[in-house]
C-alpha cells in the first residue's frame, strides 16, 4: 500500500523518469508508455521500497528493467529515431553547451544502450557510480569503464576527438571559461 510520502516522491520524480525514458528509447511516445508502466509497477510494489534510500535509483531500476524486458524486443527500429524527440520536447532558447543540442542527440541515439544509459545516469541524472552499478547489476569499476568508453565513442561520433575541433589549442585548456573581461580583451 502506497502512502502519501511515496506518492509525493513519485510525482517529484516523474520528470526525471521521463527524461531517462526518452534518453533510453529516443521516442517520446514510447517513453511515456514506459513511464506509465513504471508507475504502475512502482505503485504495486511500494512496500518494497526502503525509505531512506534513493527513490530515483529505485524507480530507474524498474524503468530500466521494464524497458529491457518489454520494449527492446520490438527491435532496432526503436533506436533509429535519430533524435526526433529533439524537435518535440525542446524549448529552444539559451544554449549552455558548445554543441548543438540536436546534433548531440543524434550522436547520443547512435550509442549502444549500454553506453547511453550509463552516461545519462552518471553524467546527467545525478546518480552516483555506486547507484548506477546497482541499477545495472554490475561492479562499480564496470560502470566507470563504460562511462569512459561511452564518452570516447561520443567524442568520435561528434568529431571532437581532438581539442582542435572544439576551440583553441591545448595551451589554453586551463582557461576554459573566459571571463567577460578576457573576452573583451581578445
Amino acid at each position, binding site marked *: *500500500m*502506497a502512502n502519501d510520502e511515496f*506518492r509525493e516522491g*513519485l*510525482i517529484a520524480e*516523474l*520528470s*526525471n523518469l*521521463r*527524461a531517462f525514458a*526518452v*534518453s533510453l528509447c529516443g521516442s517520446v511516445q514510447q517513453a*511515456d508508455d514506459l*513511464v*506509465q508502466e513504471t*508507475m*504502475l509497477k512502482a*505503485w504495486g510494489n511500494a512496500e518494497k521500497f526502503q525509505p531512506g534510500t534513493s527513490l530515483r535509483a529505485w524507480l530507474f531500476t524498474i524503468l530500466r528493467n521494464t524497458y529491457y524486458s518489454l520494449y527492446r524486443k520490438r527491435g532496432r527500429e526503436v533506436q533509429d529515431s535519430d533524435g526526433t524527440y529533439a524537435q518535440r*520536447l*525542446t*524549448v529552444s532558447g539559451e*544554449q*549552455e*553547451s*558548445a*554543441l548543438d*543540442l540536436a546534433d*548531440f*542527440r543524434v550522436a*547520443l541515439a547512435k550509442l549502444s544502450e549500454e553506453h547511453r544509459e550509463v*552516461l*545519462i545516469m552518471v*553524467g*546527467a*541524472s545525478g546518480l552516483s557510480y555506486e547507484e548506477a552499478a546497482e541499477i545495472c547489476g554490475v561492479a562499480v569499476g564496470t560502470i*566507470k*569503464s*563504460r562511462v*569512459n*568508453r561511452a*564518452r*570516447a*565513442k*561520443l*567524442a*568520435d561520433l*561528434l568529431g*571532437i*576527438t*581532438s*581539442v*582542435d575541433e*572544439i*576551440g583553441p589549442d*591545448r595551451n589554453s*585548456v586551463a582557461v*576554459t571559461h573566459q571571463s567577460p573581461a578576457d573576452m573583451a580583451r581578445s
Partner: protein
Amino acid sequence: MGEMPGHDDKSEDKDSADVVLDPRIQETIGNALKAHYDDLIKAPVPDRFLVLLAELEAKERQNGQ
C-alpha cells in the same frame, strides 16, 4: 594531436577504458549531456500521469475500506 590514442571498436574491450579524453572534451560532453537532460526535465509532465496516480489512489481507497 599525438596525445589522443586512437579509438576503434575492435580494441574497445581491451584498453579503451583507459583512454583518458582531454579534459576539455570531457567537459564539452559533460555539458552537452546536462543540456540534453535539463531540456527534457524542463518539459511539462503530461496530465495522464497525474490522472493515473489519482486513479490508483482511488482504487486503493476503495479496496481499503
